[in-house]
């Protein structure tokens, strides 16, 4: 522990002199949070739609209005010939095409089945799925309304509700827990906290050590009586404190700007954050023993950051991943921390609920710390 205070105070002098460190630590996370919180909206609406209405009477207009009202579709073009209809899709102007045949209204009046052709551009699978589901739902609703008015005219009904009105025989009553308005910010922002915390901490610690190696000051330090423990902790603790400050700022931005409340225990969240911080410090130390230059440090950091973003479940649900990819995600500490943060913030999960994630994170922590300490010791010996 010799020399701890010398190194500790010196690191703060570096931080004070370097505005980019402060910018990177405190401002960039808030910017990222804003981007992910506001810009990434996974609900799909306003799909550009082309309509070829060969019927043109009341019933077909009712169908088109109903489509517009869902807000999933935006009718951007109305065409009358096949050529323009297909052009609209192939050129990419419209993602969905609706073809209402000439005898649509007539068929409905004659109580015949009236086909409506829907063409969907499947290249954006999520938009295509949304368009398909919405159209299916729309057709069911319109058919239901027709069936209802027909049934009422005959005084017949398959089922009635308490008020005695015509109703669907099976009544599904979904209740959305935790995120009733299905806002994607609620899902993304807590996960983002974990990702940002790792990003900032990893870059700060790796760089602070690799920079000294590159400048030759690390060798100079070995000639002083500064001990290994003092050197290591003196370098890591300032950045751990900075990262913790950053965590508090991001949590504040989350609750105040994005109105994502913390349902669970803040103490539990902050306590487990420290477990994660220690783990990432170890990871940074490990990377700093591998990278000889700052350029290599960037490359190694990306090697960790990219899988962290894509495999941790932050962006894509892990349940749908192939088993091999999912196991890779299990090796990343951030996978467990994303789960912990979401659990505490969104679902009011307690320590019992989080046990698997806590155990996973602890295992990562133990392995990483052991490896990095061994390498760090060996390197300066």
């Amino acid at each position: 522990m010799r020399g701890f205070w010398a190194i500790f105070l010196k690191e703060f002098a570096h931080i004070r002199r370097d505005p980019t460190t402060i910018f990177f630590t405190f401002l960039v996370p808030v910017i990222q949070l804003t981007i992910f919180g506001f810009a990434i909206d996974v609900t799909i609406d306003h799909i550009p739609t082309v309509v070829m209405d060969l019927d043109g009477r009341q019933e077909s207009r009712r169908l088109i209005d109903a489509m517009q009202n869902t807000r999933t579709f935006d009718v951007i073009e109305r065409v009358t010939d096949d050529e323009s209809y297909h052009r609209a899709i192939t050129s990419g102007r419209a993602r969905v095409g609706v073809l209402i045949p000439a005898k649509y209204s007539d068929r409905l009046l004659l109580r015949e089945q009236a086909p409506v052709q829907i063409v969907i551009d499947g290249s954006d699978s999520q938009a295509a799925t949304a368009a398909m589901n919405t159209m299916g739902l729309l057709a069911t609703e319109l058919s239901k309304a027709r069936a209802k008015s027909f049934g009422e005219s005959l005084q017949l009904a398959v089922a009635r509700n308490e008020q005695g009105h015509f109703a669907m025989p099976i009544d599904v009553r979904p209740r959305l827990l935790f995120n009733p308005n299905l806002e994607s910010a609620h899902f993304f922002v807590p996960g983002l906290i974990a990702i940002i915390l790792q990003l900032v901490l990893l870059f700060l610690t790796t760089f602070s050590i690799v920079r000294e190696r590159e400048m030759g000051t690390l060798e100079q330090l070995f000639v002083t009586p500064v001990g290994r423990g003092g050197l290591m902790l003196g370098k890591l603790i300032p950045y751990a404190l900075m990262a913790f400050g950053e965590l508090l700022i991001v949590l504040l931005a989350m609750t105040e700007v994005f109105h994502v409340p913390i349902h669970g225990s803040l103490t539990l969240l902050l306590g487990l954050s420290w477990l994660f911080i220690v783990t990432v410090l170890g990871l940074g130390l490990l990377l700093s023993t591998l990278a000889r230059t700052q350029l290599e440090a960037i490359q190694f950091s990306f090697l960790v950051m990219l899988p962290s973003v894509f495999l941790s479940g932050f962006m894509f649900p892990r349940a749908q991943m192939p088993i091999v990819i999912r196991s890779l995600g299990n090796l990343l500490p951030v996978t467990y921390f994303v789960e912990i943060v979401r659990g505490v913030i969104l679902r009011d999960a307690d320590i019992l609920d989080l046990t698997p994630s806590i155990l996973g994170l602890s295992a990562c922590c133990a392995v990483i710390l052991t490896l990095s300490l061994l390498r760090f010791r060996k390197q300066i010996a």
Partner: protein
Amino acid sequence: MNEDAVIRTEHLGRRFGEVVALRDITLSVSRAAIFGLLGPNGSGKSTLIRMLCGVLAPSNGTAWVLGNDIRTSPEAIKTRIGYMSQKFSLYNDLSVIENIRFYALAYGLAPSRRREREQAVIDLVGIGDYVKRLASHLSGGWKQRLALACAMIHEPEILFLDEPTAGIDPVARRDLWDLLFQLAHQGVTMFVSTHYMDEAERCTKVGYVLSGDLIALGEPHELKSLPQVTPPGTRRYAVSCDDAPSALARARNIPEVRDATLFGTELHIQLADAMSPQTLVQRLKSHGLSPSPRAGASAPAVGEAATRESHAEFREVQPSLEDVFVTLSRARSRSNAA
């Protein structure tokens, strides 16, 4: 003599994998000496210094620095030595005083002593006017002084300097040596690596390392009178002539010339006593030296051998340290080839 030695190595060696960086180094340095370690780049100078500083473990042999074995008690050494590396490892984003304060703290000086020592090293290197300036904004010479101040903060008994003057202007180089003499006078032992021969001449003792071997060790005057350098029956002469490069080629064809090297416009020639220097000068001329166009314009030469066609004069010289190292290096490469 050895009781007074503050650095003593015995058969010290270091390997990096297959590569032997240093082999069988045995030397001693007495207190307040200025020891100059010479050798080309990559000859193992830095490796030796790093081992003596206790940051690199030896593969063979050992060394004692201030009575501490470098293998068993490197930490005891660290508080009593100072080290200044080639790169003047300073924190460029910290100011002069912040750098000094950092090392004062790193060496664990007591708070009361810290302030006093900070002022002392600032006065020592005369950097008082720049204390608030960032290290990155200092010139090379001032960076070097700051590095020296940091290395001296804890009043070390030995100062290791690894090529302290590489890339520094001549004035700063001279100033640094004045400082080193001043410190040596105060009883600090200097262990300096360099490849400047003029710096070697100022040392009280020098060692010459060539690809991991210590091939010469002693006081400069001892080395200059080594029999291997100027074998009995030979003398060294400096011959100045106006077309020295072609004269050099001719001199090397004369059997009595044992060694010939070019020093600017002079030839340094090691000549067997069998031939007199006058004969040598005649021989150099008689090989059909055509008068250079500028020869007539230059000042008339005063030596016996002066002619209108070519000017040449000679004087007997002591070998310089460079002569010593060149001769020893050549002898070594010849014996390696044999």
